[in-house]
């Protein structure tokens, strides 16, 4: 169908338009005029429309199984359920790159439309930078990874999508992750614009923070979703592997979190300007690095579909250009920035600096652990492995002091504070979390380990976060109705800080629990057998062969129940996808409260039994519940009227008016 050529054409048009946008933006910077500004804005929106058209054309070819398109032939199958035909669009290198570009232009258009309140000159520079990024990435797509290539003869059937990717997870995880990754491009563009124009003030931080928050929310959900997907799909019950690709998404999350906090200091107190700008650049650089690691094929994993060294070199070149360019600009312009507000070593600012120091160091630990084996191999040929034990140790050690300090942050006033006073106000939270941790640790005692410390940290962060709400509402000090009214009147940012920190605590608690108390039972079972697995009874009900749309499945059904309770039925599968001759395992997972029982089946053994692995995962759901709470808290803070479009100007005008 002709729509493929139209899609290809639309992409080329967007490429050309982005170049023109950059040129006009540069011109408008030198000779500010309304016509040029308006063109730059409209070009931002048009690029998105064109890339959307192009993406729609590609999607149409996949959904209608048009195998004359090489990409559709290689990565989809006519028998796939429609959802997977749709997600197959980005289940490959070229398509996922187009998705990346689509989201980049989406943010470009959003800034063009949503930034109308910015000073025209700054807005123009932001859009120009964004256009330059678009130009580079569309160019990379067209010239090295063209998704619109046709086959001379149309094959009858496609080669199917990698079976591991045939899952609802592919519909959710990559778009969310890319929205997060690419969203930080806006912060990057703001930073570059600020460096070029030299105008960096509290208002800048106020403009950047909603974009940072938005990207951070998407990245949080994207990583969490990826983790849950890996957990249920890969079949051995792990939820975080410190895989280089996971690390690549985790690093921008860590620096993005740091950026949220430092931009807060900059917005409220005018301090940490240089550092905040640097963080904005670093965060998007790490997003680019992640894209490079995954897309270059330097790491082979389930994420890096096809590998082609020439692409790797091109993307490395782009990475070097943007990152080095940004840092050179930074080194040149940063010294001209004036330092902002002062604060004492004990203050909320100082606590946020502490937060940034630890998050930055943790990022370095992950970065070095991820890249060092590659670099060492490239320069010396020595091969080493850096895996979970390294990261658990280094990252874990850095998180302990950070988590200890988290609840203090909101209790410290700006500028000057006293630890003694904050501790006094947090005294109830300290005692309560100690008592809870002691009770839980004693109940589940397994000898002298670090577990009780972990449990304490989890409870401390949760209770400490809620203590802020209790303190501010004067709960237990005034009548309940008064404190309820006070609670309703609290600013949105107090609520969102409290809940974001509580979400963090929930995740910590889940991680500690499942790490310390998960159990594993490996055994051979016949249908009808029943065993006892660490507090759960597991009965093997039956097994049967079930045909799927594009696979065949051996399905084993189990009945699982906590001792003395009602049982849940759960199916665990081994599938075979004939198009790729590839087997997958579909774990059977059943939930009891916050805990899960996870069953994987293996091969039949001679005496007609089946190898069965049963994990119990106490409180594991807290890991993901915590991340969702964090994301919701972030979303709530975005509804703050302070961030509504006209707000920054309004506040400034009021301030100026008052001083006159």
């Amino acid at each position, binding site marked *: 169908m002709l729509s493929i050529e139209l899609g290809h054409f639309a992409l080329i048009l967007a490429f050309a338009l982005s170049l023109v946008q950059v040129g006009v933006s540069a011109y408008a910077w030198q000779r500010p005029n309304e016509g040029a500004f308006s063109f730059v804005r409209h070009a931002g929106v048009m690029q998105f429309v064109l890339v959307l058209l192009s993406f729609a054309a590609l999607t149409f070819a996949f959904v209608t199984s048009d195998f004359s398109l090489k990409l559709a032939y290689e990565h989809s199958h006519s028998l796939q359920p429609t959802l997977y035909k749709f997600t197959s669009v980005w289940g490959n290198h070229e398509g996922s790159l187009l998705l990346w570009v689509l989201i980049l232009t989406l943010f470009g258009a959003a800034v063009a439309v949503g930034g109308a309140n910015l000073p025209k000159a700054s807005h123009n520079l932001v859009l120009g930078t964004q256009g330059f990024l678009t130009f580079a990435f569309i160019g990379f797509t067209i010239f090295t990874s063209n998704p619109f290539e046709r086959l001379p003869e149309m094959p009858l059937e496609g080669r199917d999508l990698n079976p591991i990717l045939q899952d609802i997870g592919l519909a959710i995880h990559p778009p969310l992750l890319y929205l997060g990754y690419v969203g930080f491009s806006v912060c990057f563009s703001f930073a570059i614009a600020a460096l070029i124009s030299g105008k960096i003030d509290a208002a800048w931080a106020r403009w950047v923070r909603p974009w940072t928050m938005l990207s951070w929310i998407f990245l949080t959900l994207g990583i969490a979703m990826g983790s849950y997907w890996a957990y249920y799909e890969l*079949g*051995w019950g*792990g939820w975080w*592997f*410190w*895989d*280089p690709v996971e690390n690549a998404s985790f690093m921008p999350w860590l620096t993005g979190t740091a950026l949220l906090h430092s931009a807060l200091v900059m917005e409220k107190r005018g301090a940490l300007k240089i550092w905040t700008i640097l963080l904005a650049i670093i965060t998007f650089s790490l997003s680019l690095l992640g894209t490079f690691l995954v897309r270059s094929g330097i790491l*082979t*994993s*389930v994420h890096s579909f096809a590998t082609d060294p020439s692409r790797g070199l091109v993307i490395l070149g782009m990475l070097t250009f943007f990152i080095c360019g940004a840092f050179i600009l930074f080194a040149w312009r940063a010294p001209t920035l004036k*330092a902002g507000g*002062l604060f004492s*070593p004990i203050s909320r600012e100082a606590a946020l*600096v502490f937060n940034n*120091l630890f998050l*930055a*160091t*943790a990022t*370095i*630990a992950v970065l*070095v*652990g991820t890249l*060092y084996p590659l670099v*060492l191999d490239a320069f*010396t040929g*020595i*091969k*080493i*492995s*850096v*895996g*979970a*034990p*390294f990261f658990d*140790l*280094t990252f874990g050690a*850095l998180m302990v002091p950070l988590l200890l300090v988290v609840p203090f942050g909101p209790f410290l006033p700006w500028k000057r504070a006293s630890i003694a006073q904050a501790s006094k106000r947090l005294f109830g939270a300290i005692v309560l979390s100690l008592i809870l941790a002691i009770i839980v640790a004693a109940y589940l005692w397994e000898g002298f380990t670090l577990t009780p410390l972990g449990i304490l940290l989890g409870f401390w962060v949760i209770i400490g976060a809620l203590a802020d709400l209790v303190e501010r509402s004067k709960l237990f000090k005034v009548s309940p109705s008064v404190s309820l009214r006070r609670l*309703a*009147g609290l*600013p949105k940012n107090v609520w969102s800080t409290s809940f974001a920190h509580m979400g963090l605590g929930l995740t910590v608690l889940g991680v500690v629990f499942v790490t310390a108390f998960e159990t594993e039972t*490996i*055994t*051979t079972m016949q249908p009808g057998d029943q065993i006892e697995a660490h507090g759960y009874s597991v009965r093997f009900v039956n097994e049967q062969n079930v045909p799927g749309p594009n696979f065949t499945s051996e399905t084993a059904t189990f009945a699982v129940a906590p001792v003395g309770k009602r049982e849940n039925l759960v199916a665990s599968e081994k599938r075979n996808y004939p198009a790729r001759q590839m*087997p997958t*395992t579909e774990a059977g997972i059943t939930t009891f409260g916050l805990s899960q029982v996870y069953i*994987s*089946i*293996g*091969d039949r053994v001679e005496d007609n039994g089946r*190898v069965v*692995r049963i994990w119990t995962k106490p409180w594991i759901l807290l890991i993901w519940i915590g991340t969702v709470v964090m994301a919701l808290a972030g979303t709530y803070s975005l509804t703050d*009227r*302070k961030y509504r479009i006209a707000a920054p100007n309004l*506040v400034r005008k*009021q*301030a100026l008016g*008052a*001083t006159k």
Partner: protein
Amino acid sequence: MNRILMILILIVSFVPQAIAVQPDEVLDDPALEERARDISAGLRCLVCQNQSIDDSDADLARDLRIVVRERLVAGDSDEEVLDYVVDRYGEFVLLKPTFSGHNLVLWIAAPLVFVIGLVMVFSVSMRQRKLSTAAGMTPEEEQMLAALAESENDHADKDQASRKPTD
């Protein structure tokens, strides 16, 4: 040797999966089995992507798991087992690199950055404090700040006021 290993990796990684630790591998002595699991979790499956032999279902991982258990049953300490495996497969099998030689950079990088960061924070804050004692805020700046704080408060009050009717 390396090339043979690579070829082996390519072949084995396409072998259909079974699940990791099999029932017949599990040792009778639970204490010994737990030590075996702990050691296995720190050894890389040579034919997999970033998987320990404890998690992997590859045949080579199974062989290595059995080797680990044989050494333990023979009475080796944990260190002796690790040395035995490293002797045969090289340092590449260790998921936690040793704290020595060319790995020092890996281990020291993060602590070093932390210390540098700490020193920078201190030096900047010292410098700023010196500056601030030299020149405090001008009266105009103080006024401006007060006005800003006030307008923020107004803002918050209005926020509450505008919410009331909907309650």
